[in-house]
Every structure is written in structure tokens, then in C-alpha cells.
């Protein structure tokens, strides 16, 4: 019957084309390609509904002890795999409903925009993955059933909303390219298969799904560029074969797959989109987006749009502002005592850290609360500070200005002082000509400093160069380390590529914080949790949820060779110690009681040589080129000669 209907449909279609007087030689139009891709998606949505129904029935039986755990696991895996076939467009169309209801991380969250703390417990396939493949599925059977039922209800909504939603050509290409990113950064790292570790099989399915969708466009690409069409086709073949052949999670060579399949396809699909003259999202948006879909490589500097993150606007005066910001960064005039500057705790030669566990406070005796973080690539974040308390880079400085342990002053004082310098007045006038009223103001000082920080960007380490095929070789230990980082050692499930920080791919709109259970000291006989409550004490009402206690921003591991000591309290002096901490399962794994630890407390079972490979990899992420210079001289203050002998960078 279905076939008959299809035939009738086709007849009708031909008839309508005929009647409409279309005389095209090639009946296979772009519209037809989209229709094929759309139909595939609709079929995937139907299959997913069936898979979830089956999962629900199995969970019911399991709850009544009428199905085995193997039955349940099979149904779960089937539902997940079917989800993976539709994931690229489901996510593209409505990423929030996927995250909230279908496949979000298995962590509680706080309901946004309500004037109360309301904890939303995680639901969806990832939570189920942990439970169904956990140690006690039988005891959790009622909860499993409840979660599958919620999944079923919510999926019905999602399907209802998305089934007939009109797609566009760019949706297909853009969602496919985002899915390539997702497969590499989240799928293959095991991010969303915490229990089943079924990552490679899932990658097979999502990869084939995008291959099928794009193949609907192959005849059209071929018309424009035969070689390109052939390359795209071959890359999909290569990728499919690769994923079919290398099915072991631990030995899967992620670096090879990235260079062989993911990056070339990421580029060629963009070329195909351009060859077909299909519009690209970034060119349609009136504002910058975090991810730049015009980028050709997951490790190219332009993958993330700094305009989006910087929040300072696109201005022809940027360079002047950044240069002025650099002077301010090294000028101790910003502190109450005229003795310390930003660079006091952020040394350019240490990737803008200071080698201290925690920096000495302005009183010269006490220490400030947390370890000085690197400022390189700091801009690529949704929120700043270890506790995420500040959403804008430009406003980060105000916390330092006011803290009694840091600059211990306020902007009224700073502006007053800066006004005594003709050079500064001139530099501010030149950099901020369009705002006479705010030329030398709290805003302009903050903005100039932010512009300097924005310039501190690094995507040119040996690892980046090798991934972009700019150098031919990297040491084998680095390659092994990369694969461990992105695989067995699970580092990449929190330190996401390509920033290797908590900025979450593939949209890069959010920052993650993690509860690791970092101890107060290295004293293994008297282990105790560091008392710093982290995000819980950010001062933001919405962070007052118990699971944000001791939760800290996931910082980048780029340039980590230069940034010892490590962790928010600087407790570890070497990367070996850090990796030993993770290898043991963090604080909880070491026997400390850590409520809500987000790091699995099970040991990673990394050998000494594996740890050494991981360190080789991280050391190969070093790049501070062009970022280490220091101003030779600071501006003079006429009429305040006593200020003119202050040292560049301050006395501390």
C-alpha cells in the first residue's frame, strides 16, 4: 500500500510539474534534494517514536520483572542509536528541548528566569545510560520506568513540533557540519554515553545519517563541481568504513579520524554549501554567533567568533583601545598604593599566571582567595572567574579594582588619578573619540583592559599546526596523549575541543563548572575538601543550589605547561600530581566525602606511561607567540612627580 501511494504521489508530482509547464532538463532540483532529506528526517522521527515506545514497554516489563536487564539494555541502546540518526536536525531545530528532555547531561540544573531556586532534575537518555548500565538497574527500575515515560511524553511534543517544520537547504549543511563537530567533541569522547560507552556505534549512526542527508544533494554538487562531489562522497565512504572497522573505544585513533575525516568533511561541506550558493547562517544573523560556520577547520582560530565573546562591539578603534589597555595592564597606578598592576599576578612569561598557589594580597601578607588563572583565550567564555560570577569580560576588572586584597580602590579614585596624566588623557581621547562624555570613565578603562585581554588568543600550538596539516609530524607521545585525552582518560568530556576548556561544543554558548573534590592540601594522611564553595558563593541567586557547592569553572589546558601550580587553590605543583588526582577519581575517589561530585569517582586506570603521554600532549598545547611583550615605559603624570618612578608592572 505504501508503495502504491508512493507511486501515486510520484505520478501526481510529475503531472503537476507538467501542468505547471516546467521544462527543466534536469528534474532533480534543489527542492527535490531537500524533500529527500526532509523525508529521511521524518522517517527518523517516526523510527525514534517506535524505538522509544519499545523502550517504554520493555521498561514496564522490566519493572514487573518480566524482562531481563539484557532486554532493557538492548531497548535502551536501540533508542539511543535511533536518536543518533535524527540528532543532527533535532538539535539544529531546537537544541534546548534536546538538552532539557532528550539527551542532556545527567546533572541537575536550576530553572532559569524564575524568582526562586527550583532544581530541575536531569532526565533523558544520558541519565538512563548511567542507570541502565549502572551497578543497580534492578533497584532503580521504578525510576528507570518513570524516566522512560517522561522521555516518551516529551518526545511526543518534540516530534509534534518538528515533524512538519519547514527545512531549508542551509539547515541540512549546517546541521551536518555541527554534527561533525559533535561527533568529534562529544560523541567519540564518550560524553553522552557515560554508562554504556557505546560511543563508536553511536558515531557510526550519526555519521551515516548526515551522509545520507548530504547525499541527497550530491547530484547538484556534481553539477557545480565534479571533483568536490567526488571528494565529499569519498570522505563519507572513508568515514563510514573507518567507524565500521575501528570499534574499540580505547584504541580508536581520534587524532587520525579528525585529520582523515572530520576536518576534511567540515571543510568540504562548507565548500559544497558555497558551491551551491546556499546562504550561511552567520551571514544572515544581525549579530555575531559564537560558532563561525564560515570556518574550515575545527582547530582554526576563526572557528569561534571573538566578536561574539568579547562583547565590546566591532570598532575601528579596537587597536588603539587594546594598546591603551596594555599600558593600563602593566600600570600600578590602578591600585590604591600605586604598587601593583594586573601583571603583578598575571605574568606574560607564565601565560599570564604567577607561579604562586595563590597570589600575595596587596597588604603584602595574606593571600587572595584563588589561584591566578591564565588570561590567554580567557575571552572564549560565557562567564568569568572560577565561580562564574561575572558574565562580561569588560566588567571582570571591577572585581579586582574593588577587592580589598587586590587593587583595594574604586573607579572614582582611578579616574581621578588618570586625569592627572596628559598622555593618558590624550590616549583615551584618541581611543574613545565617539563618546566625549565617557572618554575617561569607568567604562573606557574597563573596556581598554578587555580589548587587551581579547588580543591574548592562542590557536597555534604544535598540536593545532599538526591538526591543520601545517606541520607534518608530532611526536608519537603527543598523538597518544591526544587520543587518551579525548578517549580513555575522559579529559575531553569536560575540557572540550578546541579550546580544551569548559566552553561547550558545538555551539560554544555555555561554560561548565565541575565539582572535582579538590583537597585543601596535598597531605594524603589528612585529606580534606578545600573549603572554598566556588560557584555556590558566586553571589548570583541562581547559583545557590547545593550541587554548585565546590563547583569551579573548567579552565583551558592550553599553555598548561606554563601555568603551575594547578587547580583553583593551586594545591598541585606538577601535572603529574594533577593527573594522579584525576586517575584516582578526584576527591571522592581518594576517599573524601564530596556531595555532588561531577567527576566519576572511579579510577581511570591510567598507567605511568599513559600519564606521561597525556603530559606530552598538554605540553604540546603551548603557544604564547606575540603575547609576551611588556611596555618599556608608562605614561608620566605632570604635577605628580612622585608617581613617575613607578615600575612597569608594579613592585609586586
Amino acid at each position, binding site marked *: 500500500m505504501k508503495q502504491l501511494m508512493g507511486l501515486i*504521489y510520484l505520478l501526481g508530482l510529475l503531472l503537476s510539474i507538467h501542468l505547471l509547464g516546467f521544462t527543466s532538463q534536469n528534474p532533480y532540483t534543489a527542492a527535490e534534494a531537500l524533500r529527500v532529506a526532509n523525508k529521511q528526517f521524518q522517517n527518523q522521527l517516526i523510527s525514534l517514536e517506535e524505538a522509544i515506545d519499545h523502550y517504554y514497554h520493555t521498561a514496564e516489563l522490566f519493572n514487573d520483572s518480566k524482562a531481563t536487564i539484557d532486554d532493557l539494555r538492548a531497548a535502551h541502546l536501540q533508542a539511543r542509536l535511533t536518536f543518533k540518526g535524527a540528532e543532527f536536525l533535532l538539535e539544529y531545530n531546537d537544541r534546548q528541548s534536546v538538552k532539557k528532555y532528550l539527551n542532556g547531561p545527567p546533572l541537575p540544573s536550576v530553572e532559569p528566569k524564575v524568582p526562586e531556586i527550583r532544581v530541575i532534575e536531569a532526565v533523558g537518555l544520558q541519565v538512563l545510560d548511567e542507570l541502565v548500565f549502572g551497578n543497580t538497574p534492578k533497584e532503580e527500575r521504578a525510576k528507570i520506568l518513570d524516566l522512560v515515560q517522561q522521555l516518551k511524553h516529551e518526545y511526543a511534543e518534540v516530534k509534534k513540533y518538528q515533524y512538519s517544520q519547514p527545512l531549508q537547504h542551509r539547515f541540512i549543511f549546517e546541521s551536518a557540519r555541527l554534527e561533525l563537530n559533535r561527533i568529534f567533541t562529544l560523541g567519540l569522547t564518550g560524553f553522552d554515553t557515560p554508562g554504556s560507552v557505546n560511543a563508536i556505534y553511536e558515531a557510526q549512526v550519526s555519521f551515516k545519517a548526515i551522509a545520507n542527508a548530504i547525499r541527497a544533494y550530491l547530484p547538484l554538487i556534481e553539477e557545480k563541481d565534479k571533483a568536490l562531489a567526488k571528494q565529499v562522497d569519498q570522505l563519507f565512504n572513508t568515514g563510514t568504513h573507518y567507524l565500521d572497522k575501528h570499534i574499540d573505544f580505547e584504541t580508536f585513533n581520534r587524532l587520525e579520524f579528525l585529520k582523515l575525516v572530520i576536518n576534511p568533511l567540515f571543510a568540504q561541506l562548507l565548500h559544497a554549501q558555497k558551491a551551491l550558493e546556499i546562504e550561511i*547562517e552567520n551571514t544572515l544573523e544581525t549579530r555575531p554567533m559564537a560558532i563561525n560556520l564560515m570556518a574550515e577547520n575545527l582547530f582554526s582560530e576563526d572557528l569561534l567568533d571573538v566578536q561574539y565573546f568579547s562583547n565590546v562591539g566591532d570598532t575601528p578603534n579596537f587597536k588603539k583601545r587594546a594598546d591603551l589597555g596594555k599600558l593600563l595592564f602593566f600600570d600600578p597606578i590602578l591600585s590604591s598604593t600605586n604598587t601593583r598592576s594586573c601583571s603583578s599576578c598575571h605574568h606574560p612569561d607564565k601565560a599570564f599566571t604567577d607561579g604562586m598557589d595563590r597570589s600575595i594580597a596587596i597588604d603584602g601578607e595574606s593571600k587572595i582567595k584563588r589561584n591566578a588563572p591564565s588570561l590567554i583565550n580567557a575571552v572564549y567564555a560565557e562567564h568569568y572567574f572560577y565561580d562564574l560570577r561575572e558574565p562580561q569580560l569588560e566588567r571582570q576588572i571591577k*572585581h579586582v579594582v574593588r577587592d580589598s586584597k587586590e587593587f583595594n580602590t574604586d573607579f572614582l579614585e582611578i579616574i581621578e588619578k588618570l586625569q592627572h596624566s596628559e598622555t593618558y588623557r590624550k590616549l583615551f581621547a584618541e581611543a574613545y573619540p565617539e563618546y566625549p562624555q565617557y572618554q575617561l570613565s569607568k567604562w573606557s578603562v574597563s573596556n581598554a583592559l578587555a580589548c587587551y585581554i581579547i588580543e591574548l588568543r592562542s590557536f597555534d600550538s604544535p598540536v593545532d599546526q599538526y591538526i591543520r596539516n601545517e606541520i607534518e609530524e608530532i611526536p608519537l607521545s603527543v598523538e597518544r596523549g591526544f587520543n587518551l585525552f579525548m578517549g580513555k582518560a575522559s579529559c575531553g568530556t569536560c575540557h572540550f575541543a578546541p579550546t580544551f576548556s569548559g566552553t561547550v561544543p558545538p555551539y560554544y554558548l555555555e561554560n561548565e563548572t565541575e565539582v572535582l573534590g579538590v583537597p585543601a592540601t596535598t597531605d594524603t594522611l589528612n585529606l580534606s575538601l578545600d573549603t572554598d564553595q566556588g560557584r555556590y558563593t558566586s553571589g548570583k541567586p541562581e547559583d545557590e543550589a547545593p550541587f554548585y557547592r565546590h563547583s569551579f569553572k573548567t579552565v583551558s589546558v592550553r599553555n598548561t605547561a606554563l601555568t603551575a601550580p594547578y587547580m583553583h587553590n593551586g594545591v598541585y605543583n606538577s601535572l603529574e600530581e594533577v593527573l594522579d588526582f584525576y586517575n584516582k577519581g578526584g576527591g571522592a575517589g581518594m576517599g573524601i566525602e564530596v556531595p555532588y561530585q561531577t567527576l566519576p569517582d572511579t579510577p581511570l586506570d591510567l598507567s605511568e606511561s599513559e600519564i606521561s603521554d597525556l603530559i606530552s600532549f598538554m605540553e604540546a598545547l603551548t603557544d604564547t607567540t606575540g603575547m609576551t611583550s611588556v611596555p618599556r615605559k608608562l605614561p608620566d603624570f605632570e604635577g605628580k612627580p612622585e608617581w613617575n618612578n613607578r615600575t612597569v608592572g608594579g613592585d609586586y
Partner: protein
Amino acid sequence: MKKVLLSIYFLSMVVLAVNAQTIFSEEIQIPEGYVTETVLMPPSPLSMQVIFVGGVDLVQTTPTYGYEAGIAYAKEWHDFIGFTPDETEESLGWVSVNHETIYQDNRIGDGGGMTAFRIERDPITGLINVMDQELEDGRKGKFFNVDFVNTVGETGMNCGGIVSVVDGRIWSAEEWFRSSNASIYDGRFDAPVQNAGDFPKSPGGSENQGVRDTADFTISTDIPGFDGLTIPKYENFNYMVEIDPRQAKAIRKQYNWGRQGFEGGTVSLDNKTIYLGVDATPAFWCKFEADTPGDFTQGTTYVYKHDAPEKWVAVDNTDPEKMLNFKAEAVAVGATMYNRVEWVTIDPNTGIVYWTETGRDSPGSRWADEEAEGAVHDPYHLQRAIDKGWDTPSSDDYRDYYGRIWAYNPETNENYVVLEGGPDWDEEESPAEVDYFSKHLSNPDGLSHIIIDGQTFLIIQEDLNGSSYGRVPAGVGNRTCEMFLLDLSIENPTLNDLIRISAVPAGAEVTGAVATPDGVSILVNSQHPSSANPFPFNHSLTYAIHGFDQITLTNLSEPEIMNEDEFTIYPNPTTRVVYLSEVKDVAIYNAAGQRLAVLRNTNEIDVSNFPAGAYYIQTEDGTTKKLIVE
């Protein structure tokens, strides 16, 4: 058989029509005679002027916490805007801006706050000028923090408020409901914790959160039953608080209206009744009726109960116990529950009260307990839940993604829905592709009104609390909160009747909109600045949109499509939209023939971001029109 074939044939026609999905060339040649028509988009009558930048502009402060009067950086997170007309006509009037914060500040005072200033209109340029003032307390300057600390005690999270349409009296609402002293100090649930650094030098600083003074508070007020009462400090939060915008100081907390997480309210035309909205689930619809018009210290407080004979149930407002625990009283009398009530406004032409219910994805568990204790659902929610296949809105599966706009008619005492947000549909299946919705109203929050051509329009401001289910459409990267006008003379309005005002900073959350009495401007706050907007739009700020006096009913409305046979475009300079005579895929090219944008399945092109110049609009079937944007 023939019949089947024919209908399938028509079906495929439809599919073709919807799914045209032409690919438009990145570059086109524009030979002589290629363009069938040139259409002019005159300059927008609307223009923007920035007036007050939070965190950067300085306010004059009173002696506070032992600090002398002086200056401080204004607080941020601008939300509500109060406008108090100047009856003397020496100026336009006084503006008061809410700060939805709980900062610590030695000079402004801890918690939330307000900034007040006086404005006049430049007779030549028409621009707004912030005037120099000297207040009775000796403060001189342009911007003044409203003194709460030395008058009625600190406030917290000043979000919405009330502007009296009668005389411009202003109340500020304290939204963030607090339940212990620990929860106001440093904003914590538990005991005070160690801070990142002590901040002794904080004139104007605004980093640490919370209210440091948690000593018991003794009320001094002219409201019967409350004067001299000593309460734990946290119970002095969450009121409607009247302020004097002229002298930049608070007058009283309305203890007699109950202690709730208020968001909005409005004063009836006879100056007798105050209607109140509460941002919570459940939210109860409340009113206060003054014994004497204009004196809101004495009267009766009521909560709405749709199934009671008189619809309103009085709660004894001389009993502090009942006022401090208002919600419990409302539940006890079985009041009617709503889902996050936001702003309230009144149509001065009819006296009908309008209010927003912003919605909440999963309200079920939030009002299930109260339902069990006797509170009731509004029949609208009940029916809506049933239509969606659930027994009750208290079901965990009940969803309310988009919210809606309600009206309350004081004549009939009825609440009814004016405009459902959405797209909201009850069918099991997705709508057909051809019918797929393109218009959305999501999470309406800010609400006020403006008179245009003698006709009342609602000013509706979105505050998205999510992006799912079309609140941010597929293929759109950045979320946008929009501001709409709705003509209240339209009977049974639909989403298509919303008129989007594009003269707002892209991507910022807009709130607080209030019209100036001369009908020329709307003052608006940009509360949550959007990323990548240049200064000052990366700060919370108050700005004006001028030119509403140039607007008429006709130039706001969509064009009547005259010639259905021929593709035509209709520019509307006010809304900055070019309307198309039919739904199409179109590409927009610049004067050099380079493609700028492609829009699909649309009959509207928003050109608000287009610099002045010549453009070409090409449709999927190759028709090209020239558009001159001035």
C-alpha cells in the same frame, strides 16, 4: 480513483508551493529594464536616544551606613520605569528606574534600588534632556539614588512596579521572595560564608551581593496595625513600595497589601483600587480597595476566587500575621491560581485591566500542593490542560511554554485571555508544512500602554525564559526578545495583529516601556544587554524611542494587498517592514547585485538593520523589485 489522484495532485501542488526552496545566486546582474518596480522606504519616524547608563553614570547619594552624602556609580539591571508627569509643565516630568539587584553598596544602600531624575524636551531638537535638580535634602545633580535605607528599609530585586494613570504616583515591586535572614545576607540559604575579599572601600561598588544589616526591623508607618511592629529583617522585603520620584526617597512599604513576590500593578481610573500581580507559581490575583480614593493606607485587601459568588475574598489586612503570610491565606480561602503573573496595566479609555502571565515550562509541581490544600485553577488553565490530554494543570506533564495576555473587567469581575502566546496548538500532529506558524509571542513580561490616534495600544515586551518549541525558531542562532504593540480595539486579536517595534537594540531584553505624556516618546530599559552590542548597549540602560506622535493607526497597520495577481511589495517606514503580497522565498541584493540575505517562506522583510541605500528584492520566480531605503 480520479478523485484520489486529483486531491493528491493538489496536495503536491501545495508541497511545491511551500517547498519552493529556490537557490538564489550569490551575485546577480541588473540590466536595464530588469526591475519591474522601484519602491521607496521613507526614513523611520522613530529614533533612539540613550538617557541613563547603569554602572557608568553617577548618582547623588544620601548619608548612608555612616558614609557622607556623595556620589556613586548607579546600580544596574534596569527593569521598571516610573513616569510622573509634571503638572506645572516646567518639564516633562520625573523618571524613576528600578534596579533588579541585591548588591551591597555603602552609599546607595544594600539590596536593590531605584534611580530618579527629571527630564525636559528640547523645544528645537525634540530630544530629552536630563535636568539639573537640587532636592530638599540638599543633593544636587542629574541622577539621584532613591533613598530606601533611611526611610523604609532596604529593598531587594526591584523589578516591576506601578505607575498611577491618575496622578503618576510610583510604587516599586520587590520580586525575589525571601524566607530567612540567611537568604538576604549574601543571598545565601545557609549561614554567612567567607567572602572572596572584604570590600571596605566600596563607594559605588556593586560587587558583593546581599543585605548586610540583618538586625530585627521595627516598622514605622502610617498603616494601621503595623506601626511599631518588630519583625525579622527578611520580612521587611517583598512589598510594593511607594516612592517620591521628585525627592528621590521612599515613602512607605505597603504592608497592608500583603507580603508577596510582587511584579506589577495598576491603579483604577477612580484612584480607589490597586490591582496586583505576583511573579510566582501559583500566583494569586489581588486587589486593594481604598476607603478614600488616593489614600492607600486604609482599605480592604482581596484575593481573586473565580468560583466565589462575589469573585473576591477579603483578607484581613490589619492582621500582620495574615499580611506577612499572604500566600497561606490565599490558599486557605481557595483562591484562583495563575502561572507567573508579571506586569499589569490599565486602558485609560475603558478601565479594563490587562496583565501578562509569562508562563513556565513545567508548572505542574509548583501548584499541585496548593491545589491539594484548596486553591483552585482558573477554568482557562483547567480546560487547556484537558485539551492537551492531562487531567489538571497540576500534572507534571502540563506545559505552558509561551504564556499569554489576560484582561480583567472590573464591571463583570471576570478574568479572560486576550491573546494566547505561542504558537500553541492542541492537535496531536504537527501542523501541515503550509500552515506552519511563523509568528510567535513568547513569554510576555513587561506590559504598559500608549495612546495613538486616541486609541489604546498595549506595549508588550518579551522576556524569553527558554528557547525551545519555537521561542527561538530553527536556524536562528541568537535569541531575541521583542517589543510589540497591540491595538486594543481589535476584537479577538491573534498573533498576526502584533506590531513589532524594531527600534530597540538588537538582542537586548527590553523592559519597563512607558510612554511620555506628550505622546512623543516611549522610555525603555535594556535590562540584559546583548553580546556584541557596542557601548553603551552592552550596559543596562534607559533610552527613549522618539517619534510616536508621528504614528497613526494607518501607518502601523499591515497593508491591504490590492492586486492579488501581481507580486507587490509594501514598505512600512514605521515598523521597518517590507510586506510582500504573498508568502515567498526572497533574496535581498545590494546595489552591486551581491546577495545579502535569503529569507524563506515569508511575507515580511525586516529592513531595520539596512543602511540607507538601494537594494534589490528577488523572488523565487525571478521577479525583481528595487527598494530604496532612506
